[in-house]
């Protein structure tokens, strides 16, 4: 029952999804591994929610989308061609959505666009502003766009990415943000749109900030977020976990985390950990059979341990030199739970496995409910 013997079988392991981001042709046998079903749509049959990426030309929209959804190294985005037409990219993950990458030079306010249709299914508008460039013009466009959104679909989350802040000093980042916020607030007040809620994010593709910003954007589109968070809170407090993330494996954005503050290093090590696990899976992983075949990834960095775990899903443990333990557990084919905990807490491995299993079942129910 090894993977090599039946290479033609569909497999839904992590690495499979790395290599082929297109949706599965058919669902695997749903009876046992029900979490490995197809994508979860919030409303069955409803069109996918859209994320609109807009902004001036050369502000970095395509770079963002390439880095986040296509794992392009940030340094290579320099060579991206400029986008000439609206790029509609379906993202198939725990939740299906489309990223529409708009070319910067398109003026969609000129009446030729059907703004009603454009905005009707849109979940969030991400407006990218190049912080290293002159942004007054970009702000004008932003204000026009906000006005249009307010006319057509006020429910859209408006997210402003103040982008390319890696080249700015800390003080200057905040100054830029303050300036942009102030100008926008004033302008909207003049338009009579006082109540519009806009979120601002300082982002850069060279560090985690773009992933964090995207995480927040996506989280806002998740109605289950509060539930997920409470589930994680429960898990964290019962297992003495320091920090738990529910990651989308494909894009490395986190869908949910417990309510303790996210610190940069934790996020980064988790995101790197996913990369490691994916790479390991690519080398050593084999096609899991339809039902029974289980794999265990045991990655040990410092302390060896000879036990072999047999769990129904992929899991991996990494023990760090500083007494912390990273624990990855595949939740479904899109999501992975990563926990950071102290070595002492990890001694009760059975309890943790059980709790994670409960968590997994709860998650399953949450998603079922919305289906």
């Amino acid at each position, binding site marked *: 029952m090894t993977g090599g013997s039946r290479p033609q079988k569909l497999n839904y392991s992590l690495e499979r999804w790395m290599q082929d981001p297109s949706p599965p042709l058919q669902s695997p046998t749903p009876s046992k591994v029900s979490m490995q079903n197809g994508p979860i749509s919030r409303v069955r049959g409803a069109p996918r929610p859209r994320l609109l990426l807009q902004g001036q030309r050369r502000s970095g929209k395509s770079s963002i989308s390439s880095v986040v959804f296509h794992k392009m190294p940030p340094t290579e985005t320099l060579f991206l061609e400029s986008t000439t037409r609206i790029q509609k990219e379906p993202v198939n993950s725990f939740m299906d959505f489309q990223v529409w990458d708009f070319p910067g030079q398109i003026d969609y306010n000129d009446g030729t666009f059907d703004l009603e249709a454009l905005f009707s299914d849109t979940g969030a508008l991400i407006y990218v502003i190049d912080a*290293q460039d002159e942004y007054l013009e970009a702000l004008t466009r932003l204000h026009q766009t906000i006005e249009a959104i307010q006319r057509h679909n006020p429910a859209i989350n408006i997210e402003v990415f103040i982008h390319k802040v890696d*080249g*700015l000093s800390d003080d*200057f980042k*905040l100054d830029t943000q303050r300036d942009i916020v102030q100008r926008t607030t004033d302008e909207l007040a003049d338009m009579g749109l006082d109540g519009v809620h806009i979120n601002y994010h300082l982002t850069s593709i060279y560090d985690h900030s773009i992933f964090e910003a995207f995480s927040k954007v996506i989280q806002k589109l998740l109605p289950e977020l509060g539930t997920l*968070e409470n589930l994680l809170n429960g898990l964290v407090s019962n297992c003495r976990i320091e920090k738990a993330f529910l990651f989308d494996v494909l894009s490395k954005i986190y869908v949910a985390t417990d*309510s303790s*503050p996210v*610190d940069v290093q934790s996020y980064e090590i988790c995101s790197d950990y996913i990369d490691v696990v994916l790479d390991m899976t690519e080398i050593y992983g084999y096609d899991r059979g339809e039902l029974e075949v289980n794999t265990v990834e045991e990655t040990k960095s410092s302390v060896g341990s000879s036990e072999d775990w047999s769990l129904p899903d992929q899991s991996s443990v990494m023990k760090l030199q500083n007494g912390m333990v990273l624990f990855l557990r595949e939740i479904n084919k899109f999501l992975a739970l990563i926990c950071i905990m102290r070595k002492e807490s990890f001694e009760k491995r059975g309890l943790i496995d059980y709790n994670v299993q409960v968590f997994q079942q709860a998650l399953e129910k949450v998603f079922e409910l919305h289906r």
Partner: protein
Amino acid sequence: MDAFVAPQHFNSRAVGAVRRFIGGATSRPSTSAGPPSLAHSTSNLSSFHGSRTARYDLQVPIQSLSASPDQELVVVAGREVLKILRVTFHGEIRESVDLRAGNAPGKTVANSDVKWGCNFSKDVIATANTNGNICVYDLNRGGKLDRVMHEHQRSVHKIAFNPGNGKILISGSQDGMMKIWDLRQKKSTMTLWGKSDAVRDVQFNALNAVHFAAAFDNGTIQKWEWRMGGTAHSYLKKISAHNGPVFSIDWHPDGKYVASGGRDKTVKVWDFGEGDTQNKRPVHTISTMAAIGRATWRPRGVSTREIATCAMTHDNRITVWDIKRPFVGKYAFDEHTNATSGLLWKDENTLWSCSKDQMFVQHDLSYAVNPINSLNHSAVAWAPNMSFIVVMGQRPPPPAKRDRNVRFEMDDEISGGGGRKKSSISAAAGRVHPKIGTQQSGIDTLGAKYVPQQAVVEVALPMFSGVPFTVMANNWVTSLSGDMTLSQACKKNAETAWILGQYRTAQTWKMLDLIQGWEIEARQEEEERLNKEAEMAASKSHLESGIFAKRALGVTNTDRKSSNGSAGATPLAKPVADTPQLQPILTPTPKAPTNPPGNIDENLSLPPKAFGASVSSSTASTDGGEILNMASRRVSVIARSPQAIDENKELSLKPLDHHHHHENEDKITPLRSDMFSATPETTSRGNNEKNGGAYDPEVPDVAVSSSFDKDRDKATLAYRGRQYSIGLTSEQTSSSYDDSTNSFGHRPRLGNSRPFHKETSDDEDDDNHHHNHNNARHHNQTAHHNPSAPLNPAMRNTSSHNLKHQHQLNTAEALGKDIQDMVKDYGTIKLSGSGYGRMKELPWNLQNFLTILTDYYSDRGEVQMCATLALLFGDLVEFDERRMGDWIEGYVEQLQRFKLYVPAAEVIKATTVEHVRSQALTNTFIHLSCGNCNAPMMSGGGGGGGAASINTASLDPTIVQGDADARKASYKGSLYCESCRRMADGCMLCHQIVRGRWTMCQGCCHGGHDDCLRGWYVDSKMKQCPSGCGHDCV
């Protein structure tokens, strides 16, 4: 440290003395020595004078703590714990109540925050839970869970009781909502939405309890007034405070400022008063090492300046900062072994903290470590011109008496110019409650910046002066360009050094001029010899072949010609092709302008005495030998028209006057570089023209010397030996160089030494004059006998002479000693034979000589000389590659520190050292600084902003041309100056925005339009920067 921690055995004075001796390092208190015991590790041993530090192990991680209004009880909360501890003043800690005991376990878990009520709710404890609950416990009923308020759907992060009315409670939640609760009502009375992210912290203003501040996950902080209520309510003030989440906010006791701490590792103090909302910049910023978890003001009345912080992760210490010293913590506590999660000031000298390491700790500020004391208070830095600066901070005298009621007086040193603040602060007997209405001093103390009390001493060392360095750097020839010969380069450098009073350096160059002449000559000979041999062999073997014979004949002819003229048909002599044209000029003709200027050049390095005493055959032959060398390489100069020479004559007078001037004053004044624009070349040429006819008598000597060439070996040897002595003489009698320089105009009287001296060296004292004369005579007498003999009088002469130039005495002697040693060696060598091989053996051959020189100068740290030597003679002589690299790198660096970018670029261009060159080729970025405030533009890095790209190789280095596109691309990144907050571009002349190319001066960082600048610098011939900064840009 344990030796010091049994204070009851000492009397108090002894303890104080010991503490003083060990200074701020008294961190471990007696009561906490040893591992903490399980239950009651109390501090019953603490004496009156001992530290009140105490710790208590709760065995589960603690999240938060809060004190009862009377400061005797403290409630600690964690995910699995909710306990009340009793803490006595001396640090006895006992567990009082376990609030979880009588309550249902399900509801009381996962506490993220706990608060003890105040005034109307003294007996109430409220906890915030991660499941969205707010639990209220009633202590009057034995700590029973009174009620659970559940309205938040997500985790509640913080709660706060209103200090004005203890029945009012506010909660901040992950869902971004803040709710106001009245404990007398069932539901929340008000829900406030900050239109931001999750609420991380809320706190009421203690002075004005209707205001509260909230901190959010998206980096903003907001000020609210909760009474406004209703649906139209909104925040009063909103500031984007941090990059990343804000985790903590704390009102200053004066009720006008807040301190916020966030993930971006900074604590910022904000003006949250009633004033204008436009000032959205922090009053103070403290940068720390890790994300800030908690930040609380030390309660020292309304003028407190100190903030205690603890980190979220990675850093277990608690640091107390003085906002006026934002880089070094004032006190540090290193008690915890895991991240500190809660901070609370019991009173101004006692700090309570709880941590994820399961400990509750009471810290005694009097025994805290003072990080500032472990730092060096003084610093030394070198300036490029060899002066250095010393900064010394004052250390406070150790406190004479240590009493627990007397504050640890560390802030006197910090208050600095602001005067002593301690009189306004009440003593430490108890908690200082801020009094409403008397908070006026807070603004002054918070607003003012810390001015350190430090002594600054600048020391200028006389060993290095920037002026000669600069002028030499600008004027020295570092690479042979055009028709410049090595000899000319040496002469020019010598003259520049001489004018600047660098006599030793000047002499070095003159010696080098001589020696390189012999070297080249010897190499030519060698070449000829080889040629001849080859020719002989060729003619022997190919005699029958007509073509070869012809060619051989041709070679012979050329050879003969060149040996006559000793002109270089060798690769070493540059204008090889010109040799035939040179020939006629070399024939002795009485026609003045045809005199090779090299002849006159040579006079530069010859002492006038040699000429003055006798136009003897010895001198002349030396001269002649040199002439032949020079002439062969100076074809283009000869081709100049007499008119041009006339012009040169006019030019040459000026510098000469200057020479006089400086010689008279015997000191260096800053010289303008344009003064040196008349090169030695033109000077000598002008003189040549002037002396033309009168010089004729010497010309036959040239012929004589040429005639010597027939018996080449002998003649070379003869005059080489003599030349050496002359060369030394000229070197030793360095002051008389001036005479020779000045005496060009008086060459007709060369034959007559007395009048010559009288007239030309008026400024020289008679003694010196006499010496020169004597020396010259000695020289003439001894010249024929032994080449080394003339040296001794010459040396004596030097010493006496150099008395005039005290500052040069030692160095010149040292160098002279080297030479003397060399000459001694020379004396042991039997002089026979000739040719290049012979030359190589001579101790003063170029290789040896340069090795000595470079060793000498590099010992003295004169990298300028070493680098210039390496650049000029790198082709002729082999230098150690690594040393050469060091010199040139050092020289370039030094030049750049002096802002001499042109010479630096020239050096980089001229050098053969690979890594220096490659540096210049790859590193085409320069860092700009602001023209207004001279601060460097720090916003560089990242995406290519921050530096203008220039091509160092091809552009005029004074004017740096920033690429317009680069500028545009880095609009916000580079040319905006953060320290003076304005754009640094724009034209300094017309004050318009520059579109396209912006040209700037690298020295003063002002720039503008090309046309404007051209009008200013070129058309109007201005030298100074039009911005009025006083920089001489051109």
